[in-house]
């Protein structure tokens, strides 16, 4: 029984709609948010920008240490998307779509700025580096520090591709489907295999001895 004092002209009720700006989008599916953006809804654009810009910057910086190149790429991507409003394709996973797009944009800009012929992301061994978080504790270990050093050692043996997939899966919380699309695999199971094999090679480092 929700009694609304709005019907009473004397009461000082203020419609709560005015305060629920961004919250409106939090509850919506990616599809709906994208459609709203495509229709020109400025709040949808605000939501996209504030939700993803930091993540795009972190991800994009894996390709280039040139912060202005990464910033420009993000800027160009959003300008492009805004200009295409009305004609944008349906998107079901916004983060995956934006990651794919920013990756393409940044690689394009790196190629334009450098003399390196045939820039390939696999060249970039220094990129997508992983560190074992010092904040997380492994309960079972007798020597926690030793355990983390071991895991760190294991991680450093992974290929750039494997590290990228691991970061996208755990840190960025993307699905195998999204990872496959970002990494240009034609099949989802290729992403699944890539991560599974990385885990298998980490097994001796991450498995406590009892199992």
């Amino acid at each position: 029984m929700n009694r609304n004092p709005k019907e009473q002209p004397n009461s000082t009720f203020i419609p709560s709609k005015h305060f629920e700006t961004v919250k409106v989008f939090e509850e919506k599916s990616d599809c709906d948010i994208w459609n709203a953006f495509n229709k020109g809804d400025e709040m949808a654009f605000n939501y996209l920008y504030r939700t993803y810009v930091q993540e795009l910057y972190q991800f994009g910086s894996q390709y280039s240490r040139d912060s202005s190149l990464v910033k420009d790429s993000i800027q160009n991507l959003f300008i492009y998307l805004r200009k295409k409003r009305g004609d944008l394709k349906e998107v079901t996973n916004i983060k995956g779509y934006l990651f794919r797009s920013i990756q393409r944009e940044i690689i394009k800009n790196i190629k334009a700025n450098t003399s390196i012929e045939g820039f390939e992301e696999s060249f970039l061994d220094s990129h997508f580096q992983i560190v074992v978080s010092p904040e997380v504790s492994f309960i079972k270990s007798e020597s926690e520090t030793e355990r983390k050093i071991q895991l760190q050692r294991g991680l450093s043996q992974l290929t750039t591709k494997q590290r990228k997939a691991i970061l996208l899966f755990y840190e960025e919380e993307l699905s195998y489907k999204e990872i496959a699309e970002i990494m240009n695999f034609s099949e989802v199971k290729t992403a699944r295999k890539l991560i599974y094999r990385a885990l298998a090679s980490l097994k001796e480092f991450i498995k406590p001895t009892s199992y």
Partner: protein
Amino acid sequence: MSNYTDHKKYEDYEFEDFLSDEFFVQWVKSPSENTLHFWEKWLISNPQKREMVTEAASFVRSIQYKENFEFTDEAYIQVFENILKADLEVPSHNTIPSKMDTWYSFFSVRRAAAILLIGFSCWALYETQNFSDSEKASIEWITKVNEAGKKTVLHLNDGTVIHLNSNSKISYPKTFTESSRVISMEGEAFFDVKKEGRPFIVEVKDAKVEVLGTSFNVNSAVEGKLEVALVSGKVKVNDKLGNQVMLAPMEMIVLEDNGKIHKQDFDVRSVTGWKDKYLVFSDDDFDTVVQKIETWYGVDIHTAGKFNAQWAYTGQYYDESLENVLEGIAQTSKIQYKIKGKEVEITH
């Protein structure tokens, strides 16, 4: 464990199987009602796997980028402005202005920018690490206590602004140390933290909320739980069990005293309106309404008559007198009231 498979049952899962399971990762990183419900039930019926699950969860949480690249506030505004500016440079088409074109009008663009200014990407850390008591002991502490009916705004010397609600208490050092800004509180407070090098740490109940600069509401006044609501930025929550949850902007985390954690949306006005003199009722039952009025105005309320469980009240009042609030409720909710000084009688 020689090849991966989708068909294995969870009870047969090994360490690597958990680690490569999307549903498992979702539960560890961003628990939802769905994943929590499933995995909590699953752990109860598979206690022998609990240790393995905990270890696998620790692994998932321990993976992070080696280097953090922070999109600064300056970049945030600059890029945003450049994106909007590009709109205005679009050569106008020779078509009749459509509804959509009005979206790009100067004023709507400006309004969008103003709303975004509060959305700076900030970083807040909520953790359970301990700070040395010796450091604390040598500092001179100032304590402010608000009785029911009283609210205060505190301006700390680092530029941080704290709104302290009624029935709440806050202690802070006369001057902060060089390494950190630590305060402790009970009840409810809203923080607008000045961003600087030193972390800002709020000790509340047996938990700690650490931020670098952001605005958020902490409410420990509700029995049995602690609520941290973030107005802007990003929050990482670590509880004493090692659980870690990421909070998106406009999300609230609820830590129950029994160790349960869940995230939920919140309405900014309902949660933080108190600091701007808004008394908000949102589908509140009778007991909640009574408790809110008692705290807000510092009065004692006596009730008579029957209030069924269906009774609920929704309404917002801005800087209103006790009498007007009671009148507003009376008009829609069939209550009668009498005010005698600090005593209020409500009958139904």
